[in-house]
């Protein structure tokens, strides 16, 4: 099975996640889309790992999973905090960081 297929699939998944991040405004969904993009990256890493016959890539993916988990934890913590403060769950409303 040619490795290109995996890479193209990875790119496709990444694009879908990216579109989600840009288009959606619910922070929970955005986080989900980020997961998609991360998993796409993981897929690419695994594909390369397979191709080179080297398991380092797999360790990378594991670390990526850990980081993703962290990001999820913090991100969801933020979502809960927003909800607690009765802020709207819409990233467009969070514009305090404006320059």
């Amino acid at each position, binding site marked *: 099975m040619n490795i290109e297929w995996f890479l193209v699939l990875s790119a496709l998944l990444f694009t879908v996640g990216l579109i989600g991040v840009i288009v959606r405004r619910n922070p929970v969904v955005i986080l989900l889309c980020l997961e998609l993009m991360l998993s796409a990256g993981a897929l690419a890493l*695994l594909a390369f790992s397979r191709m080179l016959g080297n398991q380092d890539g797999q360790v990378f993916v594991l670390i990526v999973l850990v980081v993703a988990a962290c990001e999820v934890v913090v991100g969801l913590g933020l979502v809960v905090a927003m909800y607690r403060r009765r802020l709207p769950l819409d990233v467009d409303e969070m514009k305090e960081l404006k320059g």
Partner: protein
Amino acid sequence: MEQIAFFCGAIGALGGAIAVVALKNPFYSVLALVIHLVFLAGIFLLLMAQFLAAALIVVYAGAVMVLYVFVAAYVGGIEEPRWDSSPELKLIGPIAAIALFVAISIAIVGSGLSALSTTGPDDIPAGFGTPEAVGHLMMEDFLIAFEAASILLLLAAVAAIVLAGRRREDPNKLPKGGESS
């Protein structure tokens, strides 16, 4: 056989991904992501990453997604408001993203990576992708990365508690945005 498995997995993973983006209700989006992850794990298996496939299912589809479900349930299935502060993003974003996809695809399929277009070596060592092999690597070559990751996890946990933790309500200290909605 392998191709069939790949295409099944690919269609499932892609369908799940599209569903995540397309579904209005975040709760359903979470479920769609679970489906995506399951199919993705299958693809992982094709790439001889048994341990990671298992980890994906167990940690992700199992633990993390449960967290999502809880949060989604907690905050409720909120419909997105009609009003969009920058509608142009809805157009520009996807177009740019697709452009990126096209560019990457050209890189992959076109001449850019042609040297890499291979199925990989056939003489894969036994135990490639098994927990044992990955464990060895982690404990030997990538120990620092591993420890760093664990510290990161710890920090993230603390951060989540701080962020989401209940504190004494002080209505005066609410940020302005809270009242304006």
